[in-house]
């Protein structure tokens, strides 16, 4: 008689498609043989996880079609099983998986579309945060402004793609009724994914603006972020972009390095 822990491990490895698992032999028949009963469980898991992926990656699904998506999801679930009790955390490696998935090789933009959808998923569920009160900056010695480190709102994600991912995403929305043709050789996108009053928005950023925010999000100082932006463009308009991202609630806290 196996211990409870061994039973659970056998069941767990069966759920992860280990057919050498002996769980089937340990399940009582009850109208159906033991192996068929555990298969029902596993198939339900497969369906649940596939639906979870569908919910997060509707544009990827639309791009490749239902059949291919199910095939890809099936492969993904075999290679990246759910590791959390929370289904919302499942599926973040889908972009990585797609980038390595031989059957999707001719579609190099797919992983970036998946990253964009995962970013939206994370932003949708991220905690809220109060905006920055600019008056609180009066406590900082002006000589130390360069050493300010700003924090991004939890419901913000930055993403760069060499492909026009925003356009790809837009033309694949259910309510889009224009021309779905996308020129993949069009320039790539720097994107800020943000949540405003509960709704997800995609803002395309200028490249220096993107460098500026990306550097800040790495925990670097305002001085370093400005240098990085100036490297992209000598006339980077700091006044404008700093004010913009405090006003839209992207920069929410600060401390001194």
């Amino acid at each position: 008689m196996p211990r409870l822990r061994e039973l659970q491990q056998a069941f767990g490895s069966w759920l992860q498609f280990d057919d050498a698992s002996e769980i089937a032999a340990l399940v009582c028949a009850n109208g159906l043989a033991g192996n068929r009963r555990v298969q029902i469980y596993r198939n339900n898991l497969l369906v649940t996880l596939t639906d979870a992926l569908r919910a997060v990656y509707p544009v990827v699904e639309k791009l490749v079609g239902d059949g291919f998506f199910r095939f890809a999801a099936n492969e993904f679930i075999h290679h990246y099983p759910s590791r959390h009790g929370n289904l919302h955390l499942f599926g973040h490696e889908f972009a990585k998986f797609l980038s390595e998935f031989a059957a999707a090789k001719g579609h190099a933009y797919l992983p970036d579309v998946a990253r964009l959808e995962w970013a939206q998923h994370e932003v949708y569920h991220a905690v809220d945060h109060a905006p920055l009160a600019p008056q609180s900056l009066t406590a900082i010695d002006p000589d130390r402004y360069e050493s300010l480190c700003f924090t991004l709102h939890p419901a913000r994600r930055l993403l760069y793609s060499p492909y026009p991912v925003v356009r790809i995403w837009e033309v694949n929305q259910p309510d889009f009724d224009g021309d779905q043709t996308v020129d993949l050789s069009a320039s790539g996108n720097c994107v800020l994914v943000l949540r405003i009053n509960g709704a997800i928005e995609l803002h395309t950023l200028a490249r220096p603006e993107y460098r500026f925010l990306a550097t800040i999000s790495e925990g670097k100082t305002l001085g370093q972020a400005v240098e990085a932006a100036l490297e992209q463009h000598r006339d980077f308009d700091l006044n404008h972009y700093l004010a913009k991202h405090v006003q839209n609630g992207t920069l929410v806290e600060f401390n001194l390095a």
Partner: protein
Amino acid sequence: MTNTKTLISTAVSSLMLLGIAGTTVPANAADMEKCYGVAKAGKNDCQTANSSCAGTATKDAQKDAWLFVPKGTCEKLVGGSSKSGA
């Protein structure tokens, strides 16, 4: 770099004059309620007719060879699909 220092000094100072009232008010209670009331299909409705039926097959899901080729709107993406995702 002095130039950078001046830029930053000006930008941070003008930030304090900004007065951002109104633009970044957190979502009001009603909006939040609306937002969090929306549950994406497949996420927390595991007992829908669809998923409870679809998963009850006692045979493992088959891999169909014809599924290997993407057949969606990706056909509308032209001019550079072989570009590697650097």
